[in-house]
């Protein structure tokens, strides 16, 4: 009887410890983000207050209003940056996914000589650190006259994304049974038709995730963008964030507000793809 109750106590204790651990872990993960959101809504006086004000006294959207009301009112050209980011990210995503689909299909469906070394070779191009790549690109772009243009950045981002989209899309095509396309071909489809009517729809959600992942990479990229763009006509949001830092002071509230604006699309999109993303990356982890 005694042993029973002590075992029960022990189990309850582990349960409590487990809950506390989980709670602390989640708190650590979420707190920085929540703090940014909160700071973007508070007046600067409160952010700067000493001793700190923990409970916000007033909540206002002034930072957001100021941000979108243009350069004249002490804001930064967020709308232009947003537009640049959007144009560059969407275009390069579309191209990277198209190329990635071709490449991923090749890896998933064909056997050819040196397959794994080609795969590794493609991946290795991705390992080149952005800043190291930016040196020759900067030089070349100046020569070609495509520095500080959408086109230049799109080109760089396509190359940045292709290896990873190939990896992901390869994984998704592998999950589609080969027999389906073969059955369609027996029924009279060409390989091309079999691809578009059978395999593509089945791998569709996965490809969409790859697209979103590529989009986010472009959306968040900083090292290349900071060197290859100079002016309002091509700067993206991550680079624009630097506009809030002056020589010695930083407009923390404005920056937090811009951070929130940047994170919202990323948040929504990641939420949509989370399930597929993991599936694509890990397919073949267990069955090579």
């Amino acid at each position, binding site marked *: 009887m005694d042993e029973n109750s002590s075992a029960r106590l022990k189990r309850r204790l582990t349960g409590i410890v487990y809950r506390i651990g989980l709670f602390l872990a989640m708190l650590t993960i979420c707190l920085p983000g929540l703090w940014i959101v909160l700071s973007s809504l508070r007046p600067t006086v409160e952010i700067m207050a000493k*001793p700190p004000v923990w409970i916000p006294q007033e909540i206002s959207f002034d930072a957001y209003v100021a941000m979108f009301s243009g350069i004249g009112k002490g804001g930064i050209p967020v709308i232009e940056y947003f537009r640049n980011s959007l144009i560059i990210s969407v275009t390069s995503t579309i191209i990277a996914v198209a190329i990635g689909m071709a490449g991923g299909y090749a890896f998933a469906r064909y056997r050819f000589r040196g397959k794994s070394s080609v795969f590794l070779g493609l991946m290795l191009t991705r390992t080149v650190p952005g800043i190291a790549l930016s040196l020759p690109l900067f030089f070349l772009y100046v020569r070609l006259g495509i520095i500080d243009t959408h086109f230049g950045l799109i080109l760089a981002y396509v190359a940045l994304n292709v290896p990873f989209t190939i990896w992901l899309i390869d994984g998704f095509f592998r999950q589609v049974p080969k027999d389906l396309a073969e059955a369609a071909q027996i029924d009279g489809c060409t390989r091309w038709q079999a691809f578009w009517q059978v395999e593509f729809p089945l791998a569709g959600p996965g490809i969409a995730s790859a697209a979103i992942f590529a989009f986010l990479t472009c959306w968040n990229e900083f090292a290349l963008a900071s060197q290859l763009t100079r002016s309002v006509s091509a700067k993206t949001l991550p680079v624009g964030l630097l506009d809030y830092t002056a020589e010695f002071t930083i407009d923390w509230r404005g920056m937090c507000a811009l951070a929130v604006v940047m994170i919202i699309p990323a948040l929504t999109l990641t939420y949509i793809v989370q399930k597929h993303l993991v599936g694509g990356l890990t397919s073949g982890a267990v069955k090579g």
Partner: protein
Amino acid sequence: MKGFKPSPPFLLLLPAVIVLAAVVVVPLLLSLYSSFTPFRLTRPETFFVFIGFRNYLSILSNTDFWWAFGRTVLLLTIALNLEMLLGLGLAMLVEKATRGQRILRTLMMFPMMFSPILVGFQFKFMFNDNIGLVNNALQSLGLTQDAIPWLIESHLAFIAISIAEIWSSTAIFAILILAGLLAMPKEPIEAARVDGCTPWQTFRYVTWPFVMPFAYIAMTIRSLDVARAYDIVKIMTDGGPAGRTELLWTLVARTAYSDGRMGMANAMAYFSILLSIAFTVYFFNKLAAARTQIGAEW
């Protein structure tokens, strides 16, 4: 459909190869060439002066460079190991949860959505010695009276950067290891328990070998962009105080764009490229090995 046709995989891979050759390989060859010249942005004619290995030789005797190199390796070692451990812990915590697993999983991915530059700003804000959350909390709790100079003292700055780095990338490990845990068949664990294994033994000899390939996938993905740390460091300390948190990548950027010494910067960049490639190849091989091991056992 008849006559000579190049093989389909060749055609399918062609666009990828062309793009990567144009944007990555050719520029890299160019930068390899310019690493053998004293090229300066301000003096274009120096691009055609060939000086052999002089840039590399002067790097070898450059203590700043070796400090940055050592610091980069140290940061990566600390960060990757801790990310792995914390990711494993987090994944196991979430896997145990009976309710609300979907929400927990979403929360867990939260840091993945932050671009590295945002992570940098966010932690710069939190570690600010005057108005930062960390110091405010420590002072309000009465743990310390002084403002701790997180980003100003060199060791503390390194710690702050590591924390930012770990915060942002643990999620990748956690999510992939969790996928492994969820995909794992339950029978072997039960069998191990029936056979009298302790929980530790069950973990060590049953769960871990199964999850390992997933951890290596995470490692490979991480090693594909270890240079994310550039954004974080650039924002948080910009290599300061007095170059004490300078990493390889910030040093390359400074040499190239602030000092304008492109030739030298390209030579340094090659070290950082080789470092990244070494990481990736290493984990890629580990991944392949882990896969075959699993294939044999299950």
